[in-house]
């Protein structure tokens, strides 16, 4: 065994039933009134507004960028989202559309979503995205190598991508739905952090299950413990399947009570989502107006 695999297998185990139960208990938290208003704005600020379709076009991406800058055109108090997340080919369009805003530009690189391309192609993919203006790179790990026990290879590839990123922030997608066990999620989290990840991210959104509350909780435990062990803080990004304000509130509660309030910030926690934003906006309207909103009162992009 390599030193790395020894380190990873030495991490404490995770009992799935206990972890699920803890997450389910946290999910019963009731976030109301002032707390809800604060949390909705925070959640909006944490959204990586995402489109990752084969059918993406410059027009679609521009529309989304406009939405990212001003999610609620008629309400200046509504914050903009954290980032736009697109395929590398769409980075130039998005960079242009986001110019002058504080919205970050994230791109999935490294032969997303499978990662099944030669390393040099994945690195080129990364460099191209950064060169075109992406300041955040969402890479996928080599799950095949991880599951076959070749953790050193996974590590080396993350290191290589990190280097290719230059100044861009690196989010490492574990694709937890394919890792299957919670022990693997914990090990992959530590592996990614040791290799230099700035963020660890649950999923591509192309595999079911995508983000779940307990898996996100495990990753929050990992970043908490990693900071304790190394002094370096790493962010967490659940992605895929988070569609409602109620879901987002649950995640924020888990952040608050697992990693702590240091992570309650868009620099350290993101939601990879598309439809979530409109639900957050409708709930925001409900809190402002006192009555329920409808889909005609938010922009469809």
């Amino acid at each position, binding site marked *: 065994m390599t030193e790395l695999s020894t380190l990873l297998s030495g991490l404490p*185990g995770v009992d799935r039933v*206990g972890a699920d139960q803890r997450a389910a208990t946290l999910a019963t938290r*009731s976030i109301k009134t*002032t707390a*809800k208003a604060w949390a909705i704005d925070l959640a909006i600020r944490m959204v990586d507004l995402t489109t990752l379709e084969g059918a993406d076009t410059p027009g679609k991406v521009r529309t989304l960028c406009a939405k990212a800058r001003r999610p609620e055109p008629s309400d200046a108090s509504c914050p903009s989202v954290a980032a736009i997340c697109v395929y590398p080919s769409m980075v130039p369009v998005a960079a242009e559309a986001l110019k002058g805003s504080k919205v970050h530009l994230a791109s999935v690189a490294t032969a997303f979503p499978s990662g099944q391309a030669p390393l040099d192609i994945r690195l080129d993919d990364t460099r191209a995205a950064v060169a075109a203006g992406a300041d955040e790179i969402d890479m996928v790990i080599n799950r095949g190598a991880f599951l076959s026990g070749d953790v050193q290879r996974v590590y080396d590839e993350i290191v290589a991508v990190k280097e290719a990123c230059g100044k861009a922030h690196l989010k490492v997608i574990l694709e937890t739905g394919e890792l299957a066990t919670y022990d693997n999620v914990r090990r992959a989290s530590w592996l990614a952090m040791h290799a230099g990840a700035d963020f660890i991210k649950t999923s591509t959104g192309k595999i079911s299950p995508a983000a779940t509350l307990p898996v996100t909780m495990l990753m929050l*435990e990992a970043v908490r413990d990693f900071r304790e062990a190394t002094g370096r803080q790493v962010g967490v990004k659940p992605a895929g399947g988070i569609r409602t304000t109620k879901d987002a509130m649950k995640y924020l509660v888990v952040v608050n009570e697992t990693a702590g309030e240091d992570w309650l910030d868009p620099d350290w926690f993101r939601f990879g989502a598309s439809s979530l934003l409109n639900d957050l906006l409708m709930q925001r309207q409900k809190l402002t107006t006192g009555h329920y909103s409808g889909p005609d009162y938010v922009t469809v992009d």
Partner: protein
Amino acid sequence: MSIFEYAPAPESRDIVDIKPSYGLFVNGEWTDGKGEAFKTINPATEETLAEVACATDADVDAAVAAARAAYDKVWGPMPGRERAKYLYRIARIIQERGRELAVLESLDNGKPIRESRDVDIPLVAAHFFYYAGWADKLGYAGLGPNPRPLGVAGQVIPWNFPLLMLAWKIAPALACGNTVVLKPAETTPLTALLFAEICRQADLPPGVVNILTGAGETGAALVNHPDVNKVAFTGSTEVGRRIAESVAGTRKKLTLELGGKAANIVFDDAAIDQAVEGVVNGIFFNQGHVCCAGSRLLLQESVAEDFLARLRRRMGTLRVGDPLDKNTDVGAINSAEQLERIRALSEIGEAEGGERYTAPCELPERGFWFAPTIFTGVSQSHRIAREEIFGPVLSVLTFRTPEEAVAKANNTPYGLSAGVWTEKGSRILWMADRLRAGVVWANTFNKFDPTSPFGGYKESGYGREGGRHGLEAYLDV
């Protein structure tokens, strides 16, 4: 102040209609008690919730006579399949009125609504459903060829899980064909009285269930009544001992579910985050008012420091306060008397040299509160390692080897429950085999289910409640 302050999220208490005063429920009717009525209060606010009748010896006589008549004429002769349907009916009504029962339980007991809503009341309904199904299948329970009911059961229950303990007593008793006279605890009578209304709503024949409120004297009169055939008690070992003495020489069948001082044993290879949760759940669930609480934490020395750091951090997120707030984790101590006992033993813990850590939380001014507390540096010889505190106070001890863990865990007159945390399967089985306790939770804690028998070894009592085994307590086999 956290940047993410959860705004108050109180469950509405309007769902419950508490009457100004309650009588006794005897023979299907409400009657005035002959004793001096007493008040039951909300321990979170000290406000009076209602006035409750106090049953005297004469009231006990009347209730036992009603139960006897119902046993002889109605319930005893009734086919099991018909008894079953009454119990199913009760179970359904409990589900339908679940939120009302949960709010009332939290008001009278002080436990968080999250627990009464998600744990207590669902388990109550499940218990009636489970035993309903046994009523016409008793011959298949494997206890003997011709199981017969015992007659009239006198049942005395504690205040920590008022309605759940009622269910544990009444459901199997009725399924087996007995009739009951039950006395809820003095400080938590209200859900039992609402249950009496549920019996009426279910058209349960008069006298099958009788509810007498009162204090220790009422309980003693019930237990000592010559026409009672079965005594079931859940409460302190001290009172259990007195009951065992008082039924000596009679033909009354006795089951006792008493105190505990459970060890929760954490090995160095445990799934540490789940172990922390399990320890927190083990001692702070229901304010530690749990006979099977994991009140002694046995930590393997090699991980003690790290584990304690995690435990303290976790304790910092516990939300103590209004039991009706949906986000409350730890509610009110049930009574001034219990609070006094917890305080006294905690002071003794400090005097004995234990190092005290209290979760940083603000406590309300009115009501009975005790912040989650742990004592480190505790030895086996300390009183807080031996006596049941019955509050949110954890004593932490260490061990070096599995043998030492077992020896320390078993070194108590109690034997109700134990917890083991390790990822090593063979060690779990080895430990589970050696721990002298009626329930062993491995990599989990404080789990309950109507199908799973519960009860103690040694001074934690005898007899089992729940499951097929729980039938034996109410059958002549």
